[in-house]
């Protein structure tokens, strides 16, 4: 057990080190690409809390992600001068409010009914954002300036691609450690118990609905955080990110990377995005076919995903 833990932390430090050095050695395009992978990885990790640990497939994560983006946009456009921490707080509050709303209604249902309800909620938010042009910019979304990186009392400076990468890496790492702590806590154990046998968990005396509500809210909060990071990196918010297809991609990242591992979905996001980028260069119009074939093969031959075989070690 002790050796496993040491191995885990050595691996963690090595990967973190590589990701820290990456922007210094990679060409400009790939530097930005790796940052984006981390952001999509955080979204995938947030949905893993529900899919992998609680056994609830959500198609509402696009709403949390999108509202995180729009909350950030609202703060950056309405308040001057642009402030990173206010933008971050605004995005998180927006995502949290929506997550609480969705959680309250959706967790009364189970299995496919839960999935469909979350999908319906994300569509509702999509339609509101898409048609409320005066407030949200409608189809075009909102564009804004990137806030400077600031530490109260110490000063501030503009983000460069390298410092932005490090900022995103820091946030994603802290989120990972936070989520890992949550999943290993007694609360996390109850979530896993719900995944394994909901009826028995209820029979033991746990208020399953409350646990599910908190799980959806936590998951939504981290998805919103991913939305905040994406908005800060790309300086825009668009309704397309609220569409359920984004949630579908998060599910694909989980399946490809390995559910119930937290880092698996990040690896899944990296693998999927790299695959898509690579094939789109060689077969511009037909690249989704090989991507789809590889995904199907993985489901058949590697049902646990890329890192599924490390599940026990990663949760040790």
């Amino acid at each position: 057990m002790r050796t496993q833990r040491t191995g885990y932390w050595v691996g963690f430090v090595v990967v973190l080190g590589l990701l820290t050095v990456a922007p210094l050695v990679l060409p400009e395009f790939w530097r930005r690409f790796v940052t984006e992978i981390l952001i999509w990885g955080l979204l995938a990790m947030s949905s893993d809390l529900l899919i992998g640990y609680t056994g609830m497939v959500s198609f509402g994560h696009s709403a949390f992600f999108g509202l995180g983006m729009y909350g950030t946009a609202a703060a950056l456009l309405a308040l001057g001068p642009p402030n990173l921490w206010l933008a971050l707080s605004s995005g998180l509050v927006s995502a949290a409010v929506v997550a609480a709303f969705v959680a309250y209604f959706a967790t009364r249902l189970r299995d496919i009914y839960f999935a469909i309800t979350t999908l319906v909620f994300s569509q509702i938010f999509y339609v509101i954002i898409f048609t409320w042009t005066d407030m949200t910019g409608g189809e075009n979304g909102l564009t804004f300036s990137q806030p400077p990186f600031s530490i109260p009392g110490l000063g501030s400076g503009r983000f460069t691609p390298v410092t932005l990468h490090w900022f995103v890496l820091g946030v994603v790492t802290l989120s990972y450690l936070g989520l890992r702590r949550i999943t290993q806590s007694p609360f996390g154990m109850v979530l896993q118990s719900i995944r394994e046998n909901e009826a028995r968990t209820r029979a033991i005396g746990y208020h399953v609905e409350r646990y599910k509500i908190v799980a959806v809210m936590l998951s939504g909060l981290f998805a919103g955080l991913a939305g905040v990071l994406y908005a800060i990196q790309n300086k825009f918010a668009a309704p397309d990110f609220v569409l359920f297809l984004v949630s579908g991609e998060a599910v694909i990242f989980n399946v490809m990377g390995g559910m119930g591992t937290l880092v698996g979905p990040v690896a899944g996001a990296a693998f999927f995005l790299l695959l898509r980028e690579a094939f789109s260069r060689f077969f511009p119009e037909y690249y989704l076919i090989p991507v789809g074939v590889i995904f199907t093969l993985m489901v058949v031959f590697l049902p646990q995903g890329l890192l599924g075989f490390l599940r026990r070690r990663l949760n040790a």
Partner: protein
Amino acid sequence: MTERWQEEPWAQDLWWSGKTTRRRFLGLSAATAAALGATMLVPAPWRKAFGQAKPYKVGIMQPLTGVAAAGGKTALVGSMMAIDRVNKTGGVNGRPLEAIVADYESKPDVGRRKVEKLLVEDQVDVAEGGYLSNVCVACMPVFDEHRTVFMVGVCLDTTITTTKCSRYVFRPFDYAPAQAVAFAPYLVSKLGKKWHIAYLDYAWGQSTRDAYAAEIKKLGGEVVGTTGIPLGTADMTSFLSKISGSFDGFFGIFFGANAVVLATQAYDLGLTKKYRFAGDGAVAESTHLPALGQKVEGFTGINRYIPVLDPPLNTPYHKRFYEEARARLKQIDPSGPDPDRYVQSNFEAINFLKLGMQKSGFRGREDTMKLIEALEGMEVKESDDFPQGDKTLRKEDHQAFIREFIFDIKNNKHRLLEVISKEKTFVPPACSFQKA
């Protein structure tokens, strides 16, 4: 020799024999990923080795997959037609144009990433294209950041050359306020004073509705009601059945498959018989006519381009453009549709770039400001480069003003009713550029 090739020794390592181990799978995956990654990371020195003159790299972004794929492929025909023609006639400043096409999958996030790739990795000199306005708007800050000219090929959203205008972005075709100024006098004087507007309920539909409502009102007409219909609504009956009352005309602001649904269901509900049916030219694009049949008969619209060879469009320039575009479209659609405004505007967008590059002595991205200055205020005449007609690319907002065609549909074909000169389409600029 064995009977089955899978049993040959060389195939043993490749062919799945039911012994796939996780290690082998991961190893093969890693090797594939590494090979692909290496191909992507390594620059392409061979490109420089070919040819005497270094080509200008033109980045073209279009949605070749996803919801807007059909339109994106049509638009690409226009760009490629212009590039091939430029290269056949000696190139620009003695250098050929090299098209680097990026498919943005009809998604703004992919669009931004692809534009980054074009600008950072491919080091394109200029960019052209776009189709979905939301992707154009999302990508505009990237062109600003990398100080590269982007000639919009299709994106219609008004704000591209008004509130969100950029010194690096040009729109070489019309926009809703200019169309409304051109069409409203005809609507009010010849078709009726009272109108009901049905529109696609999102940014483009809403801004176009506002432009027409304001112009109709200014000319003494009245908009008695408006109906917003969400994008992608497969059954519009519930919206259209509520449209009734005393008014003269029913005005539709729709495009693509939505336009086909609107025209079909408005006809089925009797709206197009009871009221005069008019609207944005996109309702009756040439590609829609076979599907609509007689249901769109009598529709009156305005468009920057219609596939008609009657005067004044019977010029040799237009005939050449029309014939080549038809031949190229047949390669992607065997039914051989007529060219539409997407082919025309992308064709002319490349030609604007060509003229700007010639005028400014453009060498590469370091001369971007010279190119911008050359394009600003450029006046062009009807020619092989601009078969649609004369144009002014206004300096103040980088918005083009062009002649418009008012038409109706007769016997399932466009019939030209009136030509509105570009001078009659001018509207005041509403843009203030940030310092470039």
